[in-house]
């Protein structure tokens, strides 16, 4: 049974690649099964002939692994960054590659709130309501300088950062951020989700 373990991927917030487990390369089984990035911490059960089908892991790791690849987003699009957000959804950048393509315009069905654009005081209660309506687990991404800190709008109407209203997991700088930055933030969020506790009971 060949398990490709590149050392314990534990200490430094392992990405999915570090713990990739290749199965089906042992003696006897010639055909290699599709290589899937198993959750970090997974182990192949080598005994009793179940080697190719059963693996063990921790519940948190499996839940994190499942959740990070099925992020249903709620685009709370208000301003200019929304144009770049459209570009990210378009052909050139394509968030579908990260399992985060489907915008859910009902907060109850989504688990990633993307705050795209300036939040002003008139809008802030709406944002709070939308966030409260989302079911756990939920994550928030602040896209663009205005959502992060208010940007260069410092006046009577702009909220200096949406984290004054709701908690934020990932901050994306830029005015507006380039699409690559948004994709990088998505990968960062996936790493964070993988490392979190996921209580299911």
């Amino acid at each position, binding site marked *: 049974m060949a398990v490709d373990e590149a050392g314990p991927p534990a200490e430094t917030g392992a990405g999915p690649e570090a713990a990739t487990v290749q199965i089906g390369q042992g003696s006897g089984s010639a055909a290699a099964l599709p290589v899937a990035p198993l959750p970090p911490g997974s182990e192949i059960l080598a005994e009793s002939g179940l080697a190719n089908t059963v693996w063990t892991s921790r519940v948190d790791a499996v839940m994190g692994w499942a959740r990070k690849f099925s992020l249903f987003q709620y685009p709370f*699009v208000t*301003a*200019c960054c929304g*144009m770049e957000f459209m570009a990210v*959804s378009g052909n050139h950048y394509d968030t579908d590659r990260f399992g985060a393509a489907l915008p859910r315009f009902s907060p109850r069905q989504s688990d990633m709130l993307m705050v795209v654009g300036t939040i002003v005081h008139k809008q802030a209660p709406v944002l709070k309501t939308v966030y409260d309506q989302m079911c756990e687990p939920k994550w928030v991404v602040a896209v663009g300088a205005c959502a992060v800190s208010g940007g*260069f*709008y410092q*006046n*009577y109407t702009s909220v200096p950062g949406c984290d004054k209203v709701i908690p934020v997991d990932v901050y994306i700088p830029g005015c507006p951020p380039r699409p690559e930055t948004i994709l990088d933030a998505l990968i960062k969020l996936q790493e964070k989700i993988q490392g979190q506790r996921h209580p299911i009971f």
Partner: protein
Amino acid sequence: MSAGMPTEGSPTLPYTQGGEFVTVGEGLCIRRIYPEGEDSDLSARTMINIGPSHPAMHGTIRMVVELDGETIVGVDVIPGYLHRGFEKECEHHTYHQAIPYTDRLNYCSPLINNFGWVETVEKLFEVEATRRTQLIRTYMSEVSRITDHLTCLGAALMELGALTPFLYMIEVRDWLWEHIANVSGARLTQTYARVGGLARDVTDEWLDRCEHLYVEELIPKLRDVHGLVDHNRIFIDRMRGVGVISREDAVSYGVTGPVLRSTGVGLDVRKYAPYSAYGDVSFEVPIGKYGDNYDRYFVRMREMEESIRICRQLDPMIRATNGEPIVVDDARMTLPDKKEVYSNIEALMNHFKLIMEGPRPPKGEAYHAVEGANGELGFYLVSDGTGLPYKARCRPPSFVNMGAIHLMLLGSQVADIVPVFGQINMIGGECDR
């Protein structure tokens, strides 16, 4: 008062045109109509709230709609969910520093906003940009207009369920943005204009590549979109005869741009008051006939073709002015050459004053209008002689067009809100500023 002037009172048009104002509590005042042949049973009506965080409302508009069955019989439109204090910020920044704020007015076509602002400031200074600057500004305005129409139509078609045109148009828009970024440095918020000129010069290779993008990307994709939706039954059913506004109503409500032109009024600032180099190029102003959504779609598609035509006429003119200056030679607004700044005390002081205090136009007021992608984009500036504008007003086409949306909605179905709203092309940053 002269004899020809009427006295107060007896207004000619009733202000209840397009519905009667009814206050329904909690600060809501809807415009309500009573369809003919019905006994106006108010208890059968339903009030629903749409937005502001709703995909069809682009995140920044709230509508309270009164429904009779599925027919809209009352509507209150509440903007302001993206009011970022543009005018207050401008009053606290110099004329140069305010240029990035104008980027974020209509963020689908930032260059037109840039040029509108700096041309108004130049009007205050009573200077005229150089020939090459005017040509490049005209060229860039048209590229920007194309990206705006691509965004508007792509999003509007996606909201109707046609995802493929959205993907096509966003792809082309991305190519154009990256191409603008090659000369301005930013994809979306370009800040390309300067008072008295431009930030950077364009090259012949840039123009070659732009023409290449038109031929290889834009024109084929426009043809594909025409083929996909023009004769599509679902598309026609949802666009034709929906959101109709009459010519008189459109003029009374100050509607400009493609929405006005769809009603058959061929008004275009580029045509009747040519600014920059629009007087040197020939182009058509497409107009519609019925004033409905389908006409607006077609006006926008045709405008993109006209924009390509304008660009192609400008292309040899820009090449012919290669090497000419792109900024005016006027120390009141143009930064001196860096070499001068480091070797010459007058240039150093000039640089310092321009950066710290900004250009100081003489006292006065100026209104200058350019044809934005959604209509007349005007800037009204009042200068008190200092480096900060005393008053900076943007005449926003989206805001004024949105003020007439109840005329298009009352009496139609609730599902018609989506295409009507999409074809108005409300841009939050410009509508709410």
